[in-house]
Structure formats: C-alpha cells, structure tokens
C-alpha cells in the first residue's frame, strides 16, 4: 500500500549516515534525537497552512454569527409622532382624579382638578416608576421612593433630579385631547 504519512521521514528521504529503522517514522524518528528528527518537518509551510485555515475559519464563523446576532436584536418599536390626539373620553377622568394615557411615545397623566385639566409625563424622573394623583395632598406622588410633584410637574420633594415634562390637555365635546406643550 502507498505510504500513508510523513513523507519527509528520514527513512523515506534516505537519511544519510544513521539511517532510521524501517519501523519508526514520524516527526521524531526512532533512534534519533528530537531536534534532528524535527529538521525534516517544514514548519513554515505548516504554520502558514494553520494561519490560512484559521483565517478562513474565522471568516466562516463571523458570517454565521452575524445573522444570528442581528436576529436576536429586537426591531425598534415605531411610535407615532402626532402633535395632538384624542386619548379617551372626558368621563374617564372625573373631578379630583388622574388617569394615565399613552401619547406618542410618552405616558401622560391627565389630572382633573375641579374641571381644570392639567397634563404632564407620568414617568418619575428618578427611576421610571409611574406616578399617581394623590387628591388628599393635591400632589402627584411616586410610590417607589417617595418623590412628590405638584400638579404641573414641578418638584416638591424627593430623590428625583428633574421636574415632569408638561403637556396640554383639553376637552372637546366628550373627548379628551392631549397635545404637545
């Protein structure tokens, strides 16, 4: 049968002088000290091949992983961007109460203070919990860490760094319309 491996073994190349035994072949030939046996192995070709295979492998791996990563990243949710919109019925916000509606990308709390409607963002500027209207104290309060705002969003007390952004709310017919400030 044909020679299966190690075409550069000393026995095949007919190493001079010592002449390796017929039996043993391989990078370290039988009977020879390691360094001399390794002389016949072409390391430059071997490491070049290693680098080529590694490079192609990296290219294949990246081109396989790229679609997977892109797939996992969820698509960005598109929000509308209207200057004003109908969010609900006036009856949903009776006097001395507040209710949160979705307006474009914001959550807006509409407070009915004896007929007068005010609107500001419901997202507490501390860590993002939604505030509620506390009628007893006439404040917007956040249950998470005790932030307090007045009806138009200004800070009264608490850990929050910024006031609530304001919006405009009005009643037309039986609808409540929220618009940008």
């Amino acid at each position: 049968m044909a020679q299966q491996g190690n075409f550069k073994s000393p026995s095949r190349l007919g190493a001079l002088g010592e002449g390796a035994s017929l039996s043993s072949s391989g990078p370290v030939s039988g009977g020879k000290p390691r360094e001399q046996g390794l002389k016949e192995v072409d390391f430059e070709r071997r490491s070049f091949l290693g680098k080529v295979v590694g490079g192609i492998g990296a290219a294949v791996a990246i081109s396989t992983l790229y679609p997977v990563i892109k797939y996992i990243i969820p698509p960005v949710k598109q929000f509308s961007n209207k200057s004003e919109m109908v969010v609900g019925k006036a009856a949903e916000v009776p006097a001395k109460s507040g209710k949160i509606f979705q307006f474009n990308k914001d959550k807006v709390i509409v407070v009915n203070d004896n007929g007068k409607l005010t609107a500001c963002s419901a997202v507490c500027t501390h860590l993002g919990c939604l505030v509620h209207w506390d009628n007893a104290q006439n404040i917007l309060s956040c249950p998470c860490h005790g932030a307090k705002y007045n009806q138009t969003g200004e800070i009264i007390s608490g850990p929050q760094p910024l006031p609530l952004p304001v919006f405009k709310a009005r009643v037309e017919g039986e609808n409540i319309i929220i618009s940008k400030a």
Partner: protein
Amino acid sequence: MAENNQNAMAGSAPAKPKPAVPGAAKQAAPGAAKPAVPGAAKQAASGAAKPAVSNSGVYKPPVERADTDPYKDSRISSLGAWFQERFYVMLPVIDYLKKKEVPRHRLSFWYYFGGLTLFFFMIQIITGLLLMQYYKPTEAEAFASFVFIQREISFGWLIRQIHAWSANLMVLMAFIHMFSTFFMKSYRKPRELMWVSGFVLLVLSLGFGFTGYLLPWNELAFFATQVGTETPKVAPGGAFLVNILRGGEEVSGETLTRMFSLHVVLLPGLLLLVLSAHLLLVQVLGTSAPIGYKESGMIKGYEKFFPTFLAKDAIGWIIGFVLLVYLAAVFPWEIGVKANALNPAPMGIKPEWYFWAQFQLLKDLKFEGGELVAIALITVGAVVWLLVPFIDFKASREEKSPIFTMLGLVVLAFLLINTWRVLAEYGW
C-alpha cells in the same frame, strides 16, 4: 486491538494478529497508540517483520506506516493543569476516551452519518431557540408571529428556512445511519442497546417533525396534522390517544398548545436523555467493523476518535452546513395562508416525506378495516425491526447473516418504493 470492550471479544472470533504491522514498532515506541492490548494473543505481532499471511491467502507485504499518536508530544496548558489539579478523578476517564479508535476500511465512509444527524439536531436546537424568541404559540397569534419573523426580523427568513430544512436533513441522515448500521450488522453483540436507543431516537425525531409541523398554523400545517391524527383512531384505544394529542375532538388552538409543549419541552428532554445514553454507549463499546473484516485483513488501520476522526467528521459537518444554507436560500418553504378550521382540506394534501411510505400503505389498503391492518403491519414491523439484534443469532456469533440482510433490503425497498409512488402521484 481497538475493540474497547474486551469482554465482548472473549468467546467470539479467535483473536488474530493484526496483519502487516511491522512488529518492531511495538517495541520501539513504548507509549504507542494501543496500550489496551490484551496480554496473550497480540504478542504474536512481535517478531513479524515478515509478511503476515491472512486467511484468504492474499499476500500483504509489510508496509511502513506512521505510527501516528496525536497525544505523543502533547503538553498540558496551564488551564488544563488547573483542572487536572482539581478533577484528577476524571483523569482515568479522559485517558480512556483518548484510547477510542475508529477502524478504517472500505465501508468506514458510512460512519459519518451518525455525527451528521447529531450536527443537524444541534442546528435545530439553536435555530429553534432563536425562533422561540419571537413566536407566539396561541391560535390568535401563531400565524401572525410566523409572518412577522420572516418579514420584520433581520434574517428571520433565514432562521426559519434553516430550521425547516435542517429538520428534513436530520431525519434523512437518521434513516441513512439506521440502514447503514443495519447492513453492517453493527447492532450485533455487544451493541444491542445502541440499536434500541437509536430506534427510540428515530421515533422521537419523527415526533419532533410531526409536532413542529403544526406550529406555523398555516393551511398545510393544519390539515397535515388533521389527517395525521385521524388515522390512529381506528386502532384499539386510538380514539382516546388522539383526544389527548389533539386536546379535544378536533384540531384547534388546544392542539397547538399541546404540540408546542411537546415540541419544545417534552421531546427535547427525552431526546437529550436517550441521546446521552446512545453517545455514551458509542464511547464505551467503540465502533464496530463489519463481520469478518478484521480476520481477513480488510481493516486498513485504526485512527483515534479524539481528535482525528472528529476532525474528519467536522469536514462532513461543513459540507452538510453548506448544503443546508444552499437549500434554505434557494428552495424556501412557503408562508402559506392562515389556517381556517372551516376551510375544506386542500387538494393533494399529504404528510411530510418521511411519512409517505405509511401514507401509501394506507391508501393501498382501502378495503373495510384496511386502516387497522395497515396500522398493525407498521406496528409489528417496527417491533420486529427493534428486536433484530436479539433475534439475529448468526450475527451475534460473528457469522455472516444473509437472511437479515435480505430482511433489511426488503424493508428498505418497501420504504423507497412506496415513498417514490407518492412522489410520482402527487409531485413534490
């Protein structure tokens, strides 16, 4: 001596010296590749620089072969040393694993198909997990999320097509693997349980295919499931089982929920357990060679499983991956229309190709009670097929077993011919 399980070889064919191995190699390389040499018989290899005469009288001259030992010059990295210090109990296990060898002969090409089945299954796990990030398994949202994945998500179409195609390729590789091991009689002693666990794996894979097929909730999925779950009703107790499977009398949103839970939780759990057993058996029992090959010197050599055979396996996996991506991109599966229970079944409705043989048998046995006969035939056939290692006595004695080869050819012919008949009648 590559047969890992020494007990199995005791009492079977008499140990013969491996022909054409230069005997001096055994002495010259002390840390050589085959330390698991049973004491007595193999020393006959020593002193053989002369040609060994095999039983068939063929002259095999001594050939100088590289006594390749991939672990000869290996050194432990510092990370490896860190583990070795703590898990030294595992060192004998790792040394044992390093010994496993795979015989090389003219039929060893077939050894790759088991690994290919595993490869396509791993692809299924990955793409399945990805699809689950966006798929909603309810009657109201299943089809909408299915369309959403393919239209809105980056490369969603690619993940879905790969998942659909890899399912088919996995079942195809499993069938090829099963028949190649059958004809090579790899099921014979001591590997009976490998055959049994392998058959269970095949049945689980077909279950995966059946349960997953409904999930897109398009017309094709709905009616294929309806037809597929209608047939078992004629068997005794079948109506009850169909009721459990369907979550009711009809295929509905309840069926979808049950198929989803089977496909994603129960079947993967069972398959991983049985697969671990199957792979463990492969490592413990080694790879079998066809009957008589060792004695007649048809084995060209033995290569190490780790890393040599695994590296060659990886070549097959890369080719399989290329084929998979080609099929996914060039022959995409349809999106279809949303399932509507009140629509009539579409013309030419048929199950997936791996069920076509049974489908054709059911159509052939159209007489009164024919369905029950078909179910009985398939069930009895499957049980006989499962028990082959326990009834093929000749193979277990390492003798040629032509009757079972004929049986395998008959079964293969039945499957191929009936599958082809469905293709001829219905088209693809």
